[in-house]
C-alpha cells in the first residue's frame, strides 16, 4: 500500500451527490479529493435530460440557498425552461428545465477543476480503512484505498457511489456487468462496506431508449414549448443574463398496438421472467409495468425530450423498458410519428447495491462509523436533485466533523431537504425514494419562491453563503415585512374605476371602504393587480412583490401551518435518552420494541415516524418517559 497523502475529506464518486459534497467540503476550507471511475462522467445525467420539476425544483432552490452549485449549473446549461403547476397553488409552482446534458456535465467539471482546495482523481476506490473500538461493531474511518493500492488517509469519507456498486444492466436476455451508459461498475467496494457490518440492499431502476431525432416526424406530435419569461433556479442568477432561444419537447401517446406488442413479449422481459429480483420504484414504472398494472388505460403519454443542443438524440420519457432489442424497436415504432424511428441506445434496467439508509444519523454519517458519510442513490434515493441535496449536506457535515463542529441538520419544517433526509434515515427505503410534494407536511411554508428566506441563514452559518449574500437576503426580508405592514393599514374607497376593475375581474364591487388586504385575499384578485389603486404603493423588486402577495393572500392557511409546525417542534424537542432499553418497556408491541432498538431515534418525533411504530406505541413511550424521568 502506497501512501497518497493526508486529506480532510475524501469523496467517492463524481455524480450529482459527489460534486456537491466535494465542492461544499472544499469551500469550507477542507483539503478535499474526489474520486471518479471516469472523469468524463462528472455530473453525468444517465437518465432523464432535465433538472427540477415538482418538489425536485424545490430541492434545487434549497441547494442554492445553502450555497450549493446545482442551480447555477442548470441556469447556464438549460435549453428549455417551464414553471409547472401555475394553477394549483403557490406552494407547488415547480420550475423544470431541460438540460443540455453534455454542457451540464462539462460546466460542472470545470467548476470542480477551478476549486482551489479540491483535487480530482480518476480511479476506483475499492476499500474503506477503519479502526474498530474494542467491541468491533463500531469505530472510526482512517482512509480509502484505490484499485492500484494507493492509501489516501482522511478524516472523513463521503460515499457517493450512485448506481455503480456491483451494477449490471439488463434488457431481454442481455446482461452486461457495467454501470450506466456502459461505464465500468465498482466491483469491490460494497464487499468492503459489508465487512464493516453495513447492511446492503439491491435496488433496480431503468431508462428508456434514446432515438435519433432525424427519424422522428415531429409534425405528428404536440409541441411543448418553454415559458416566455424564464425564471432562473438560482437566486444569484440575473434572469437577463440567461435569455436564449429554447428547444421544444414533444408529446405523443401509446396505443392499443403498442400495448399488444408489449403483452405478447412480456415473458421476454427480465422483470417478468424473474431474472431481476431487486426492488424497483413504483413511481418510475417501466412501460411493461404500466401496461400490466393499468390494463384498462387505452393510452399512456410519451414525452420526446432532446438530450442537448448539439445532438439529435431524443429521450423517450414515459417508456422506460428492459424488453429485448427487437421488441423495443417494434414497440417504439407503433407511436405516431415514430414509425420509422431508429434507436441509438437501447433502454435497459439497472441493478445496483445500495445501503439501508436507516443506518445513518440525520447528519448522513453512519451511526456505527465515525467519519463515514453517504449521499445520493447509495442511500436508496433516486433522482439527480435528491442526490445533490444529500451530497451538499454530507459534504457540509463531513467538513464540520473534520473541524470538530456540530452537524447542520435541516428539519422537516424547514425544507424539503429536511423531509428527504429524515425520511431516508428514519424509515429507510424499501424501493428507490423519489421526492414528492405530498411527502412534505408543511409544504405551504416550504415554497420554492422562499427557499432563500428559509435557508440562507443556515448556509451563511455553515460558511457556504457569503456575508454579502446573507445581508441581501436580510434586506429582502425586511422590505417584505415593511410592505406587508403598510398594506395591512391601507383601505380603498369605492370609486368608479375600482368597481369597474373589480367587475372586469369577476369580483363583486365594493359599496363602502374595504381593506386592501381583504381584496388581495379574493381568489380572483392579487397584490400586483391592485397596486394601481393603492396610491402610496412603493416601487419594489419583483421577488419582494411575489412574497408580499403570497403572504397576504394565503395568510389564513399559512397561519394554520405555522401552528402545526409549533406542534411538530414540541414533539421533536422531546429527546429520547441515548441507549434507552426498549425491551424493558413492556407496553410496546414487539415490533415497535425491535424497530426502536434498531433505529435508536433521537427524539419522539423521529420515533413516531418509524414504520412499525404505531400512535399507540408513541403514547406508551410518552407515558413511559414521563413516568420514568419525571
Amino acid at each position, binding site marked *: 500500500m502506497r501512501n497518497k497523502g493526508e486529506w480532510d475529506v475524501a469523496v467517492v464518486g463524481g455524480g450529482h451527490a459527489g460534486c456537491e459534497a466535494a465542492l461544499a467540503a472544499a469551500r469550507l476550507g477542507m483539503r478535499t479529493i474526489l474520486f471518479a471511475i471516469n472523469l468524463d462522467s462528472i455530473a453525468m445525467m444517465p*437518465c*432523464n435530460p432535465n433538472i427540477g420539476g*415538482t*418538489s425536485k425544483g424545490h430541492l434545487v432552490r434549497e441547494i442554492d440557498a445553502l450555497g450549493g452549485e446545482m442551480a447555477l449549473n442548470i441556469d447556464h446549461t438549460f435549453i428549455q425552461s417551464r414553471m*409547472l*403547476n401555475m*394553477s*394549483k*397553488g*403557490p*406552494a*407547488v409552482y*415547480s420550475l423544470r428545465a431541460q438540460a443540455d446534458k453534455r454542457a451540464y456535465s462539462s460546466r460542472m467539471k470545470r467548476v470542480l477543476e477551478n476549486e482551489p482546495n479540491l483535487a480530482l482523481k480518476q480511479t476506483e476506490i475499492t476499500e474503506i480503512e477503519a479502526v474498530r473500538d474494542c467491541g468491533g461493531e463500531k469505530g472510526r474511518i482512517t482512509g480509502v484505498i484505490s484499485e492500484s493500492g494507493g492509501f489516501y488517509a482522511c478524516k472523513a469519507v463521503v460515499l457517493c457511489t450512485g448506481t455503480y456498486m456491483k451494477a449490471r444492466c439488463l434488457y431481454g436476455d442481455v446482461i452486461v456487468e457495467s454501470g450506466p451508459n456502459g461505464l465500468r461498475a465498482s466491483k469491490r467496494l460494497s464487499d468492503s462496506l459489508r465487512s464493516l457490518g453495513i447492511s446492503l440492499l439491491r435496488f433496480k431502476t431503468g431508462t*428508456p431508449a434514446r432515438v435519433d431525432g432525424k427519424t422522428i416526424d415531429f409534425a405528428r406530435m404536440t409541441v411543448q414549448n418553454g415559458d416566455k419569461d424564464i425564471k432562473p433556479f438560482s437566486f444569484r442568477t440575473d434572469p437577463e443574463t440567461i435569455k436564449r432561444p429554447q428547444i421544444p419537447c414533444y408529446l405523443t401517446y401509446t396505443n392499443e398496438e403498442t400495448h399488444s406488442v408489449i403483452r405478447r413479449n412480456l415473458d421476454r422481459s427480465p422483470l417478468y421472467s424473474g431474472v431481476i429480483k431487486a426492488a424497483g*420504484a*413504483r*413511481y*418510475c*414504472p417501466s412501460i411493461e409495468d*404500466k401496461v400490466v*398494472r*393499468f390494463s384498462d*388505460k387505452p393510452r*399512456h*403519454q410519451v*414525452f420526446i425530450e432532446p438530450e442537448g443542443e448539439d445532438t439529435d438524440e431524443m429521450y423517450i*420519457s*414515459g417508456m*422506460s423498458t428492459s424488453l429485448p432489442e427487437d421488441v423495443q424497436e417494434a414497440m417504439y415504432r407503433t407511436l405516431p410519428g415514430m414509425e420509422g424511428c431508429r434507436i441509438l441506445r437501447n433502454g435497459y434496467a439497472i441493478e445496483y447495491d445500495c445501503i439501508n439508509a436507516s443506518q445513518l444519523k440525520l447528519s448522513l454519517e453512519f451511526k456505527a462509523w465515525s467519519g463515514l458519510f453517504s449521499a445520493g442513490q447509495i442511500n436508496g434515493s433516486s433522482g439527480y436533485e435528491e442526490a445533490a441535496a444529500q451530497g451538499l449536506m454530507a459534504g457540509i457535515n463531513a467538513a464540520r466533523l473534520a473541524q470538530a463542529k456540530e452537524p447542520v441538520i435541516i428539519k422537516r419544517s424547514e425544507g424539503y431537504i429536511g423531509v428527504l433526509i429524515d425520511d431516508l434515515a428514519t*424509515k429507510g427505503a424499501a424501493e428507490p425514494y423519489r421526492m*414528492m*410534494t*405530498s*411527502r412534505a407536511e408543511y*409544504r*405551504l411554508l416550504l415554497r420554492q419562491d422562499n427557499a432563500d428566506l428559509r435557508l440562507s441563514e443556515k448556509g451563511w452559518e455553515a460558511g457556504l453563503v457569503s456575508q454579502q449574500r446573507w445581508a441581501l437576503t436580510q434586506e429582502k426580508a425586511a422590505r417584505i415585512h415593511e410592505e406587508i405592514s403598510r398594506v395591512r393599514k391601507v383601505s380603498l374607497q369605492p370609486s368608479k374605476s375600482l368597481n369597474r376593475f373589480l367587475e372586469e375581474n369577476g369580483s363583486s364591487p365594493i359599496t363602502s371602504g374595504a381593506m386592501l388586504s381583504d381584496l388581495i385575499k379574493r*381568489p*380572483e384578485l392579487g397584490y400586483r393587480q391592485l397596486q394601481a389603486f393603492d396610491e402610496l404603493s412603493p416601487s419594489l423588486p419583483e421577488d419582494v412583490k411575489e412574497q408580499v402577495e403570497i403572504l397576504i393572500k*394565503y395568510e389564513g*392557511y399559512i397561519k*394554520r*401551518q405555522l401552528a402545526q409546525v409549533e406542534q411538530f417542534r414540541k414533539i421533536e424537542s422531546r429527546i429520547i435518552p441515548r441507549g434507552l432499553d426498549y425491551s424493558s418497556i*413492556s*407496553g*410496546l*408491541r414487539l415490533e415497535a420494541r425491535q424497530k426502536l432498538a434498531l433505529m435508536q431515534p433521537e427524539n419522539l418525533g423521529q420515533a413516531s*415516524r418509524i*414504520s412499525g411504530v*404505531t*400512535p*399507540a406505541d408513541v*403514547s*406508551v413511550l410518552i*407515558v*413511559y418517559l414521563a*413516568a*420514568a424521568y419525571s
Partner: protein
Amino acid sequence: MPLTDTIAAISTPLGRGGIGIVRISGSEALGILDKIFIPKGGRKPKSYSMRYGFAMDGQTVIDEVLASVMLGPNSYTTEDVVEINCHGGMRAVRSVLELALRSGARLAEPGEFTKRAFINGRIDLIQVEAVMELIDAKSRKAEESAARRLAGSLSRKISSVRERILTLQARIEVSIDYPEYEDEEIGSLEVRREAEAAMEDLKSLIACFERGRVFSEGLKVVIAGKPNVGKSSLLNALMNEDRAIVADIPGTTRDVLSEAASLAGVPVKLMDTAGLRTPEDAIESLGVGKSIEALEDSDLAIWVVDSSEALSEEDAEACAKLEGKKVIIVANKNDLPKAASMDELRTLIPEAPIVSVCAKDGLGLDGLESEISKMFLSGEAEMDDSEIYINARQRQSAAKALESLEKAARAAGEGQAVDLISIDLTDACDSLGEITGETAGDSLVDKIFKEFCVGK
C-alpha cells in the same frame, strides 16, 4: 420504577349494591392478601379461584369476604391482581381498603388499573377508552356498544369515510406531483363534489353518534320559560319528588337545579332554570345568565307556557332565547280554562311539538315522554344493532373533521387552488385518524402509486 408499586382501590361504584370489591394490583398484591385475609380452612386461593374467609385487622375480624387471585401476566393489568369481595356494606369496604393501604399498597388514581393494562401492553388506546366507558355506561345499550367497539366496528366505519377523503386527496396530490399527466388532472368542481359527498357520509355517522351519546351520557334537557309558568313544578313532577322550591312568586328559582332522571328509557339530565325575563335584581340577573349558559349547552329545551293566560311580551322574550334549539312546548296548567292561543304558539316555533300538561298533578307527562322519544330515538325504543356510540373526545374529532371538509368544499366552490384545499382535507383525515389511530403519511403515497399510472 413507579410502575412496579402496588395499587389498591374500591372497584365497585360507591353506594350501589350490597357487595363492594377492593382490587389490589402489583408485585405486593399476594403479600398484602396474606397479611389481611385468613381463608377458612387455611387453604390459600390459587390463581383464578375464590376462597371464603375473613378480612382481619390484626386479631380483629372486619368482615366475612371472598378473595380471588389472578396471577400475572394473565390478569387485567398483567400484574398479580387480588380482589376482595366484602359483604358488610360501604363501611366494611372502606375498612378493607384502608387495611390494604396500611399493608403497603398505594391508593390508585382514577383509571390507573386500565392505565396499567395499557402501559403493560394488554390493551390499546381505543380499548382503554371503551373500557372506561363500560365502567361508566349508564344504560345497557351503551354497554353493548362499548363491547362492540372492542371488536373494531367503530374503526371500520370511520375508516371508510377517511378512505374516501384519502382517495380525493390522492387525486389532488397526483395532479400536483405529476402535472404533465393530463389524465390525472382534477378540477375544483369535482373536488367540491367529492368533499360534499364525504361530508354527507360523516354527517350521518355523527347523527348516529349523537343518538349514542344520548344513551351513554344522558340527554341534557333545560326547562325554560318566563317566570312563574310552572317550570319547577314540571321538574318535580318528572322527578316524582319535591326537589325544587315551588312558590307563586315569580323569580323564585335563582340558580340552575340539575337532576338525573329517566324519560322514555333515555337517561336525562334535567335542568330547571331561572325564568327568562329582564331581571329585577342582581341575584336574579346572575340566575338568568346561568339559565342562558345551560341553554347553550343543552340538547333539548322544554319551553313551558301557562296556557291559562294569554301569551305575553315576556313569553315572546323567553321564546327568542330558544332560537336554534330543539324545543318541545309544554302548555302547563291545563286544569285551568285555556286562554293562550295554540295557533299563536305554533307560529312562534313552527317545528316544535306542543304537549298539554298539568305539572301540579303530574298529568300529561307521558305525552312529553313520547315526544322526547320521537325526537331522539326516531320513535323506536330499541335501536338498531349497528348503531355506534363514541366518547366525547372522539365526537369532537368527528366534528372537527366535518368542519375541515366544509372548509374544503367552500374553498373549492370559490375556485381556490387545489393545493390549499388539500390542507383542509389533510386536517379532516388527521382528525378521523385521531379516532382510529391511523396516520396519513405513507398511506397517501401508497395510494398514489397504487391507483395512478404516472412516472417517467
